[in-house]
């Protein structure tokens, strides 16, 4: 159920401002792809184009093609709602729905879409998703308590459970660990390793050790200066990017001489 993503000549705009220019890349199924680069270089912007979340911001639009297993996300007549049901997303800051219990948060994708489900099916999916997110043992006795009562790390894993409960083809993670302590980070990283057995995972991170630890492939984005568009500098196997990158800029960034 995981899928290949092919991006060709993608430009992302915020109004007239060109934020990311001319990205072409292929993301392989059943793998973890990490985006690294300095702040403001367009990693998150680019990530959000992969499930059409970019256009949620007023005035934002893209040019170019994103193919998921050959289907163009930006083709005419494509409903972004259908895209987002296949491409799940975990955000930088945990954002459980404050009005819902832990259980309802995990099943939110179904509840909010008013999809009917048998109680037994729902319970199975709930347990499977929470186990998948490494959270089941911690919350199994308080599934009816509000999701906002959990700790930050637990909330983030709750959001991951919510995303994987939808059984998406692709999972996008926008700096999922930036607000977490090392132990929660480790839990999320372990989880990413398990999830890549079934999903295509794309993760944005500022933590280069994390990129090196979890990803199979790494893409380095950079920006020429304030106001200039972000660009994909180089992409390749993570070992290669972190040992012998082709570009000088990549090496400078990774060794900490820049950025």
């Amino acid at each position, binding site marked *: 159920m995981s899928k290949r993503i092919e991006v060709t000549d993608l430009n992302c705009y915020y109004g007239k401002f060109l934020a990311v220019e001319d990205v072409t890349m292929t993301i392989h199924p059943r793998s973890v792809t990490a985006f690294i680069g300095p702040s403001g270089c367009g990693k998150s912007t680019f990530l959000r184009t992969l*499930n059409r*979340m970019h256009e*949620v911001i*007023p005035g934002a639009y893209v040019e170019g093609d994103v193919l998921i297993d050959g289907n163009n996300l930006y083709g005419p007549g494509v409903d*972004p*709602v*259908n*895209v*987002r*049901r*296949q491409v*799940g*997303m975990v*955000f930088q*800051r945990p*954002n*459980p*729905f*404050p*009005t819902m219990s832990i259980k309802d948060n995990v099943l*939110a*994708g179904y*509840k*909010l*879409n*008013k999809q009917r489900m048998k109680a037994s099916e729902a319970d199975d999916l709930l347990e499977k998703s929470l186990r998948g997110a490494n959270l089941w043992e911690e919350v199994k006795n*308080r599934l009816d*308590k*509000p999701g*906002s*009562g*959990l700790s930050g790390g637990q909330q983030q894993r709750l*959001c991951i459970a*919510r*995303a994987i409960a*939808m059984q998406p083809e692709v999972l996008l993670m926008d700096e999922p660990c930036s607000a977490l302590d090392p132990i929660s980070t480790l839990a999320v990283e372990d989880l990413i390793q398990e999830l890549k057995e079934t999903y295509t995972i794309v993760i944005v991170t500022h933590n280069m050790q994390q990129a090196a630890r979890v990803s199979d492939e790494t893409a380095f984005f950079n920006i020429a200066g304030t106001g200039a568009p972000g660009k994909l500098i180089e992409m390749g196997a993570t070992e290669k990017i972190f040992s012998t990158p082709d570009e000088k800029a990549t090496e400078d960034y990774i060794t900490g001489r820049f950025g």
Partner: protein
Amino acid sequence: MSTITASRTDNPLTAGQLPRYAPWALGAVALIAGGVIDALVLAPFDIATTIFFGAVLFLPLNYLAGRLVVGRRAAADRLATNLVTGAFLLALLPLVSLLWEVLAKGLPRFDATFFSYSMRNVIGDGGGAIHALYGTLYATGIATVIAVPIGLMCAIYLVEYGSGALARSITFFVDVMTGIPSIVAGLFAYALMAMVFGPGTINGFSGSLALAVLMVPIVVRATEELLRIVPNELREASYALGVPKWRTITSVVLPTAVSGIVSGVILAIARIIGETAPLMIAAGFTNSINNNPFANPMMTLPVFVYDQYAHPGVERDFYNERAWAGALTLIVLVMLLNLLGRFIAKRFAPKTGR
């Protein structure tokens, strides 16, 4: 393990201190001094002016005490604290006095008769405001039913969909509408009914229209503020789950803001329930119960209060008592609405328990 013991002999952090009872003692002294001045200068002695003189004396006394014993900063702190507290008490004064007056004058007729009789065929003692109470409930009820959906949807449009010139002009006109004198709303409703149903159409529904015109902008403003503080992250979380925009609004945004919206609506009701001028024009006067909002004039509580006061019969006291009781009823209604709003806000608020 080495232990560090601090020397307690000479601590440069200490300053002179006034005992905790000092402000109270000074206050008592100032009050007594105020009383003496009052008795000598303004004789005869009067409690209100005594308190006034006492307060005026207390400010410099307390400042001086702080200045002499503690220091400049502490003295300024005392002065500022006293001024702020004084402003608070001053603001409270008319409110308490008003409540006291209405209670004292309204309670004698705040009885069962008042809530079971109308003014039909009453010219002296007895009689009541049941017709006006019904009328107020009808008029505000219908106004709420008209204004809340319009206001709610308008706010949703402004926050979730609107952009550009249309949204800006709606916001502008909502602001203008907030400032409309209520009598203009009454004239509007009267003129509208005259156009549609012929001149001289005065009934409860017409009054409701006038109230609705006043209520819509309040609801829009309150709801808009609340929708804007729903974090965008929640909307994005919902979109990312493949939830369409309209479902995101109805199932995520509105439930998150519902407690505030409900209390906003209730405050809007409380705000219009006491409107008098538009109802005098649009709903008219009557002494009888009218259960049909679509025909014949309908009495409402504020108009009842005005009518009892302005058009008394021969025995004026009975009419005045009824006016005060009507005012008390209105205050009680508004208070109940506020309590209901608080209760609902608490009940629906996003839960944070563990």
